[in-house]
């Protein structure tokens, strides 16, 4: 909503109110100021009176004007075509400095002396009021030849752009904003008085009638008026331009101006085109389904109330008989009625749906007054009206409750004063109680907290003292809170290990997921209105996003890229789970003295080590996970706390080539599986343990996990741990390999003896011989 100070001043006296005060007042009452700007007019731009205007002898398009500027008469050459219609104009005299540092000097145009410039509005830094020069008239104030244009406060107006919240339809007009401002500034509203000076003797009922069919939940009022020599004065066009309302034809401008001023929804019809054969106008107002109301004439719909108007019947400048319509419909009724419907909504719909001014007589009177002034309007006596019976909304309010919600004692009398000033009806109901009657223009107010908001606005939040809330001690450390804390420590370990935290959208490109063999959300459950083709579905993996990030970093010449992300992914049933993903691409470390400038590339062992430094120990087994990113011979599933919960892999070379990135490793793990489990301590042995290496010869295709599983299945009490330490292969071994595993043998209850060690190794060897054909080397 854009307003101007001078325009507001028509309804509330703003004399002596500075722009700073206006800015603060608007903000404090909840009408947020987006911008506030005052127009200024350069010095030496004055009101000039055109005495004569003749064609330039040598240029068709130029006029030579003699212009009275008070103390002298200037000869000025003017190129604008409309100068011939002008009487008073804005003249920039020699020495004036116009915007963009355009200095007016004596000049010669095609041989004719010119001592100044006749200005268009935009040349003065004002908004564009139309083609050609700006023609002055008395709508801006009494015109005095030679007077500085900057002395007219209708011209040097202050434009204020307010950001209205969705509930404040009542402030979608100059009058509405003035009403709120008058309460905040404690200045009374100037009354609007309409007295017709120019009336047709005939009553409107003699030529037209209106009939309501069904229950009409709206107000409608019509006036019929003759008009002639329609013109729009400068003040109207200038103000409309200042508040960014597109200028149309003259009638349109007058109606836009009236609507912006009063907030009443106004439309005009070409009355002649509505006449029946007997010259009579018959209007039908019809209640349709869901509260929709149509207005028709000659069995033809001329308007859908609050939504649009039949273009063919809309009045134009050339029309001499106008049917002026003012309407009000409760926004809730309207919005519910047109919801889901495919109605063609015109620009007035916005105002109607937010709550237009219900005082439709005000709108009609204001526009009739404008037409009388600027189109010699002559109305028929009376109105054609359909009125709904509105039930007054009354709220019984306990003012102590208002104080409790605010947390500050607000006296009952203050509350009554504020509400009354805001246009609410208030009756004292004894004690702390009052009854509040809600004015119709505040359709947004339905309960005590709405009333409280009004009090808070006017009292000012900054006048409410902060008070800490006392609450009873209770433990709030729930499971989610602990999970957050765990997640934080996991993220910190990842950082300590050299990884950067990544955050990416949970969106992904469906065709990409499909192409690389990842699961996708069932199409019946997928996004209806994605924002872009490459973000058209929910992701089922974070790795794809991380690869995109790697690619981007490679293009920025990063050589060693380590990223992790904890985020949501969705399976084909759109069930959300959380994953922890890590990627490492390129050099294992940066070039340095210690690696003589030749750092290793990241490899499976060092990536796996980094991952375990973050999440803790895990076991790797044959990879069951399937997608195109997985390297078939350098990949594994991760067993963590005895559960299969993710996988780790080198990026498949084909994909690596497609992405044009260096060697890359990645892992994706279920976050929930990483959550710390409850631990019971096991006793620590006081006796010395023994390391014993076994060098086995086994088939080269036998994975270590087969050996490990076999040993583990023995469940030997004395064998407290074991791990591979060397692997060896040569031509002599043929299709076999040598694997050395280290056993750590220790007893909890006694010192080991030679035969204890012997029995453990032979148990292990026997088992491995049976399961894998292993022999000692």
């Amino acid at each position, binding site marked *: 909503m854009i307003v101007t100070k001078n325009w507001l001043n028509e309804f509330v006296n703003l004399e002596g109110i500075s722009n700073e005060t206006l800015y603060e007042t608007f903000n404090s009452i909840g009408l947020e100021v987006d911008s506030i700007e005052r127009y200024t007019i350069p010095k030496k731009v004055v009101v000039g009176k055109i005495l004569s205007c003749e064609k330039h002898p040598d240029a068709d398009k130029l006029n030579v004007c003699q212009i009275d500027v008070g103390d002298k008469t200037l000869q000025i050459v003017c190129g604008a075509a409309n100068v011939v219609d002008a009487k008073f104009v804005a003249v920039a005299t020699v020495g004036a400095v116009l915007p963009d540092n355009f200095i007016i000097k004596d000049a010669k145009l095609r041989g004719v002396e010119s001592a100044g410039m006749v200005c268009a509005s935009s040349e003065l830094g004002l908004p564009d009021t139309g083609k050609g020069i700006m023609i002055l008239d008395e709508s801006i104030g009494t015109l005095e030849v030679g007077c500085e244009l900057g002395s007219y406060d209708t011209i040097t107006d202050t434009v204020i752009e307010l950001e209205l919240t969705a509930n404040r339809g009542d402030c979608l007009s100059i009058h509405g904003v003035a009403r709120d401002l008058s309460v905040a500034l404690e200045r009374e509203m100037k009354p609007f008085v309409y007295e017709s000076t120019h009336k047709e003797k005939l009553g409107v009922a003699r030529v037209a009638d209106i009939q309501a069919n069904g229950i009409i939940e709206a107000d409608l009022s019509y006036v019929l008026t003759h008009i002639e020599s329609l013109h729009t004065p400068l003040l109207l066009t200038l103000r409309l331009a200042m508040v960014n309302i597109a200028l149309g034809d003259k009638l349109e401008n007058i109606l836009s101006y009236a609507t912006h001023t009063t907030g009443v929804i106004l439309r005009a019809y070409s009355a002649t085109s509505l006449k029946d054969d007997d010259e009579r106008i018959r209007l039908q107002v019809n209640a349709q389904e869901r509260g929709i109301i149509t207005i028709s004439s000659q069995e033809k719909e001329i308007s859908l109330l609050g939504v649009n108007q039949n273009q063919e019947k809309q009045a134009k400048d050339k029309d001499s008989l106008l049917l002026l319509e003012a309407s009000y419909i409760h926004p809730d009724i309207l919005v519910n009625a047109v919801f889901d419907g495919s109605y063609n909504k015109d620009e007035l719909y916005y105002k109607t749906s937010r709550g237009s001014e219900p005082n439709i007589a005000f709108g009609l009177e204001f526009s009739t007054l404008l037409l009388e002034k600027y189109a010699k309007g002559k109305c028929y006596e009376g109105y054609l009206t359909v009125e709904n019976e509105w039930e007054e909304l009354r709220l019984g309010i306990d003012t102590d409750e208002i104080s409790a919600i605010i947390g500050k004692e607000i006296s009952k009398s203050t509350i009554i004063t504020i509400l009354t000033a805001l246009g609410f009806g208030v009756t004292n109901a004894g004690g702390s109680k009052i009854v509040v009657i809600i004015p119709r223009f505040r359709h947004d107010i339905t309960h005590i907290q709405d009333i409280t908001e009004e009090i808070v606005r006017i009292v000012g939040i900054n006048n409410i003292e902060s008070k800490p809330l006392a609450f009873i001690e209770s433990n709030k450390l729930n499971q989610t809170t602990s999970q957050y804390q765990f997640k934080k420590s996991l993220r910190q370990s990842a950082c300590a290990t050299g990884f950067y935290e990544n955050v990416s959208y949970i969106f992904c490109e469906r065709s990409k997921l499909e192409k690389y063999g990842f699961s996708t959300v069932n199409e019946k459950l997928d*996004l209806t209105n994605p924002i872009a083709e490459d973000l058209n579905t929910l992701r089922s993996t974070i790795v794809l996003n991380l690869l995109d990030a790697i690619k981007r970093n490679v293009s920025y010449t990063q050589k060693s890229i380590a990223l992790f992300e904890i985020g949501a992914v969705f399976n084909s049933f759109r069930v959300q789970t959380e994953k922890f993903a890590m990627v490492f691409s390129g050099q294992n470390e940066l070039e340095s003295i210690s690696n003589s400038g030749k750092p290793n590339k990241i490899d499976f062992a060092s990536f796996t080590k980094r991952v375990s430094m973050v999440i803790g120990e895990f076991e790797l087994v044959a990879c069951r996970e399937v997608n195109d990113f997985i390297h078939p011979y350098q990949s594994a599933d991760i067993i963590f706390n005895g559960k299969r919960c993710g996988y780790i892999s080198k990026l498949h070379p084909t994909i690596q080539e497609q992405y044009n990135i260096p060697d890359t490793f990645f892992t994706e793990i279920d976050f929930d599986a990483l959550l710390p489990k409850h631990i019971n301590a096991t006793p620590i042995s006081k006796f010395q343990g023994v390391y014993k290496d076994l060098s086995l010869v086994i088939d080269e295709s036998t994975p270590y996990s087969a050996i490990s599983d076999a040993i583990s299945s023995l469940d030997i009490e004395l064998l407290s741990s074991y791990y591979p330490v060397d692997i060896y292969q040569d031509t002599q071994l043929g299709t076999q390999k040598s694997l050395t595993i280290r056993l750590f043998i220790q007893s909890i209850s006694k010192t080991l003896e030679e035969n204890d060690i012997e029995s453990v190794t032979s148990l292990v060897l026997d088992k491995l011989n049976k399961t894998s054909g292993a022999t000692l080397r």
Partner: protein
Amino acid sequence: MKILKKIQEASSLEELEGIRIKLFGKKGALAGEFAKLKDIPGPEKKAFAEGLNKKKAMLQNAVDEKYEFLKSQEIEAMLKKEAIDVSLYSSLGKKGALHPVMETMDKIIDYFVAMNFAVKDGPMVEDDFHNFEALNLPKSHPARDMQDTFYFNDGGLLRTHTSPVQIRTMLKTKPPIRIISPGSVFRRDYDLTHTPMFHQVEGLVVDESGTVSFANLKSILTDFLHYMFGDVEVRFRPSFFPFTEPSAEVDISCIFCAGDGCRVCSHTGWLEVLGCGIVDPNVFKAVGYDDVSGYAFGLGVERFAMLMHKVPDLRSLFEGDIRLLEQFR
């Protein structure tokens, strides 16, 4: 004394050891002297022995002192040999860094956990009831224009704020409630200042009717903003949200220009950082609460992160660009 000079001039531990053996060894010079003792007559014997012991002690002392000196010289030489140019090794290993948005979220959560709020989370895929209807946002509500929503083919939607978590919490438990819900939220908006996904932290406090007031809300949010931004001015402006009434927007004095007006604050001297209000009775009605009072607030984490760390471009936060991330190490 020649021998003393010899000790003092010894240039290595080996040389000193040689002298020591010559002096104190079984066949050393001192042993020879002591052997003479048995031939010295009674009265002089004592004086001779005393003189000899004194000499022995003096020599022993000289040897010990020299030994200490030569030993420390040897260690020094050994250390010198191991000398490296340590400056070559600055910043060999690099720590990673938390994402500025996540780190900011941590900081926010820390505050509210310290203020005895419980953390709650909920699903990103929501339904109309939890995301809109129960929050006093019926289908026809004009405020729904404010939010561009991602919908799914089955009618589900991506939550446009974390408020549905509050609804779910209220439906599951009884007051008193004191929670924050941090998480990703989604709006169909993509330009310089909007990304389709961003992060919010919302808070909710509910207790018996008449106990929770606007003044309480003002108190905690003012304290919170001082914790986050330090010594700033805090301003509350009345505003409108469908789920709170009265509602306010909270501004801090611009941290870039100290309130003088600059590009970041659009020359107003203020930065909008929070929305808040007293919970609308219609919200309580939707979850079946009677006779309660409560406040709620919400903030965008990206906005906080960008302000606190002076990140110029919102979209750069979602690109995994290490050049940006490494600045937060």
